[in-house]
């Protein structure tokens, strides 16, 4: 039932109208297109095995193109930061997306990840294989 098959995503550089102004859309008695329950199957590719997902708009937080299964974020350790802090090369031609300056704080000479940015999964979401249709 979903709405993304046209891939008309609004980008800063190319605005397309998504407004259903043509009147072609039929209002059925149900009011809803038919959908059904499903299973969330997350992208299984491991870090370094998949291509980046295009951002929704310039500077939107990138979504996660790899599996996060087995990775954890806790008070004592954060498995994301290891690769993403510096944007290390994971496999040939695949570097982890480097965390931007906004994610760090400087106190004196020391730079560290801002505490308020520590819960990576609050913005960066693992994605399923569902394409949105």
């Amino acid at each position, binding site marked *: 039932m979903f709405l993304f098959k046209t891939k008309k995503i609004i980008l800063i550089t190319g605005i397309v109208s998504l407004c259903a102004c043509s009147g072609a859309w039929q209002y059925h008695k149900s009011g809803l297109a038919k959908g059904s329950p499903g299973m969330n199957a997350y992208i299984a590719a491991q870090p370094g095995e998949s291509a980046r997902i295009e951002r929704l708009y310039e500077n939107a937080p990138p979504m996660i193109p790899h599996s996060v299964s087995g990775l954890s974020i806790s008070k004592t350790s954060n498995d994301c930061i290891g690769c993403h802090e510096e944007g290390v090369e994971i496999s040939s031609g695949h570097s982890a997306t480097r965390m931007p300056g906004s994610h760090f704080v400087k106190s004196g000479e020391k730079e560290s990840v801002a505490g308020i940015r520590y819960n990576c999964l*609050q913005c960066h979401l693992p994605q399923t294989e569902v394409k949105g249709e």
Partner: protein
Amino acid sequence: MSKITRREFVKILSASGTIIYLNPNELFAGDPEKDLVWDKAPCRFCGTGCSVLVGVKKGKIVAVKGDPESPVNRGTLCAKGYSLPFINYGKDRLIKPLIRMKNGKYDKNGELKESSWDEALDLVVAKVKEALNQKGPASVAMFGSGQWTVWEGYAASKLWKGGLRSNSIEVNARHCMASAVTGFMTTFGMDEPMGSYEDFENAGAFILWGANMAEMHPILFSRITARLLSDKNANLINLTTYSNRSSEMAAREIIFKPQTDLAIANGIANLLIRHVKISKEFIDKFIVFKQGRENIGYGLEDGFKFKDEPKLSGFEDYKQYVSKYTPELVEELSGVSRKDLEYLAEIYGNPEIKVLSFWTMGVNQHTRGTWMNNLINNLHLLTGKISSPGNQPFSLTGQPSACGTCREVGTFTHRLPADMVVMNSEHRRIAEKIWNLQPGTIPYAPTYNAIEMIRALDRGDVKVFWSMTTNTFQSFPNLNRYKKGALKDGRFIIVSDIYPTRSTEIADIVLPSALWVEKEGAFGNAERRTHFWKKMIPAPGEAKSDLWQIIEFARRMGFENLFEYSSSEYHIPEGHNASDASLLAGIYLEKALWEEYRQFGLGKGHDLAPFEAYHKTRGLRWPIVDGKETIIRYREGYDPYVEKGTGLQFYGNKKDQNKAVVWLRPYEPPPEVPDENYPFWLCTGRVLEHWHSGTMTRRVKSLYRAYPYATVAMHPVDAEKMGVKKGDKVKISSRRGEVKLYVETDGRVMPPQGMVYVPWFDENVMINEVTIDAYCPISAPSDFKKCAVRVEKIS
């Protein structure tokens, strides 16, 4: 605040306090400055109240940023916040009124057909007049939400109570934070938390009472995380009925059986007294003890009524009362070990540890929600850990203006603005004076709370039901009964919304609404902060703001006098991007409504600032006296209402000599518990990616792809016992209904054995056909967190 240019924005960033964000320019890589206009607005989603900068290009939202000037979110946003540029632009946006028609005229069994606003509103007016004539004002019901802007809720309340003379106005916030309201009212005599988000940086312990903040309040959780990372002595304790993401940062996760939080809180109080961890001096000076009725029922019957009868009690009686909640009994009821109970008592009792208690739906959507609110407040009162930096009982809210609109404006059947109620003749007199009405206009009797309202619709006592800014027919419990009720002949259902939903499916008439920055608005968040925004883009097609809909309906009903204001005082300023409602009224309507509304609270501890002040700030927290906001209430030096020399005054409770109330409230079991036929507990709730019924978030690609389907979380041992594995399809049924969906055994939510968890965002998994319509007799929110279900494998 006016528009922010890029240069100013960068200046704000680099001047934002002690934290220096490196390379701020990268936020604007490329050339987005071209033709892009930025302005501020509160986020459309939860009750945290983050400020976002909205980037508009040629009349379209194309980007958002966390607002670096916002004291709430400090430049950050969560995934839902970052999805805001897409919520307005779903392909199936409602852009014309729709009427259910057959053979060219309205027919309840017809199909939705496009109509004009004139036809649609003529029909609404005809049906409302018919109901008024046949059944009287109480049969015309408005059901709004905590997503109404302040002036939408205010206009609706004024029209219903002062125009139609009907108290049949309720909001979905009834299901959400009504128990927090009655909790604060019965303990302190005034609604809403006394603290503010500044307390986060001052606290040493964060105790979550059934609130998965990591997913439901991510930005606030990140502020807690920042605090935990910067001070190794600071701790988070996750008290919960199932394991969840908030536990990842927790020093301890404590799992308890549903409903037994009542016993746990009383058990902590018992240990505090036994170990002499209470503050006797504080108790003597600032507390009275009270006991109410017990064995109070569950609101399961139509026409259920309850009135508490508080009696004065005393410390010795209270001590005796909680002494039966021994660690042994608490463990037997809740499954929480003595060690964990002692640990909690140590944290609440240690004078060196500043404690913030948080709660939302776990405590509020509870058949004893008011009691549970009282019991958490008790712990802070017994120890004196209240109304000081880092020490507060802190209820969170789920909707952007559950506080600002529902609670403060009082859009409930029994309430009026500023904590006043229709049952009180003096309060009615004050409202009638401000509204310029004949004395006796406002009816004195409340009609229906949310559940009673939809039951009345089923019975035929309510004839017209107008659902606005909420998805009633996905979000109410025990939906099978209420959907059938709405579809009966002689019931007229109006749904104002932005997209087709399970509610438009049932509607007789659908009115297309404007969304968020398509209108001018105000929201009030969980820390008493009211935050305004301006209209930034036009609404699509013929969509109209809910305020326009209310005003135009009022005009057609002959109540235009309720919304007539001085055109010289409230003229629309030159260059102002006036809303459709302002253009209709020919004045700056939002300003006129605000200035009238704020008269209710001035001098009564609910002081709001003049209209213009809010457009210049990222919100202000009431009471605002002499231009200064209040970050901690009831404490001398912070709150201008506290008399000099008293130190602390719970001035909402004048009848109790400005003292707060510690309540004697027992553990009582829930109405339905697992048995042989229905052996599992069912708990429902949200997920980080989706908001409420998913109307907006399921139309955003990144969010939809991140969590397309509602699944049922099961413990692997339970799954194995049933011969079910991850990805298998099952049927979940209760005495009320059933759903079919897929099993998850290793997701982010892990229920204990004997419980399953299903989120309610997915319109293809209508879990509320399974849930129970039991409620707290005092506050009347439904208990979405516990009922008994059966799980069966579908081969």
